[in-house]
């Protein structure tokens, strides 16, 4: 299992190859990217703040839970922080399983739970000031 938080961009295929998982019949990858900004809002960038060490700890918990629930052979999670622009990759989740259902369910669960529990916060940078994007409340 690899869980990493970084400012740098990543190559989804190179990341997945690095784990060198064997015996899997199915691999599902999710790549989240910055959508085009609303032109009228004059948004020029996105700034992602995070809570160092807790992000890794929480992502690891989320990945382990999904691995147990769905019997995943392996899991990879990479999440970026810092300043991002339209089209930039934000997050990568890859799951390996014997069969496709487990790989799909596990991958989707990780990104769903990540969005409610991993301590990241997004701010839109505009010419008129910055706007925090409203987040989701984690279940404790």
């Amino acid at each position: 299992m690899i869980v990493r938080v970084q400012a740098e961009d990543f190559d989804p295929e190179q990341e997945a190859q690095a784990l060198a998982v064997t015996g899997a019949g199915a691999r599902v990858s999710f790549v989240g990217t910055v959508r085009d900004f609303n032109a009228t809002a004059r948004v020029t960038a996105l700034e992602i703040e995070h809570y160092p060490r807790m992000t890794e700890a929480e992502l690891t918990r989320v990945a382990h839970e999904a691995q147990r629930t769905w019997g995943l052979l392996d899991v990879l999670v990479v999440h970026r922080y810092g300043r991002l622009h339209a089209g930039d990759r934000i997050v990568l989740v890859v799951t390996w399983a014997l069969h496709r259902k487990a790989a799909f369910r596990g991958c989707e669960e990780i990104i769903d739970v990540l969005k409610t529990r991993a301590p990241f916060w997004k701010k839109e940078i505009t010419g008129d000031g910055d706007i925090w994007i409203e987040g989701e409340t984690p279940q404790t």
Partner: protein
Amino acid sequence: MVTVRCFASVREALGLSLCTYALERPMSAEAVLAAVAGERLSTLPTRPLVAINMQHGRLESLVHDGDELAFFPPVSGG
């Protein structure tokens, strides 16, 4: 002594990123926040979320010497 961190809009509202607080008696996480935020606490539009030792917790939880507390708004990663 507990460590207190604030993130995102909570950090900006309180003007507080990182501080320590000397616990004199067992206190809730919320009471620690009130103590370190002072009068700026009222600038928070809602009660923040809390993590205790890097796990999501409750504002009502008692904190202990050596704990790391973090206060922040709902998360918005992914």
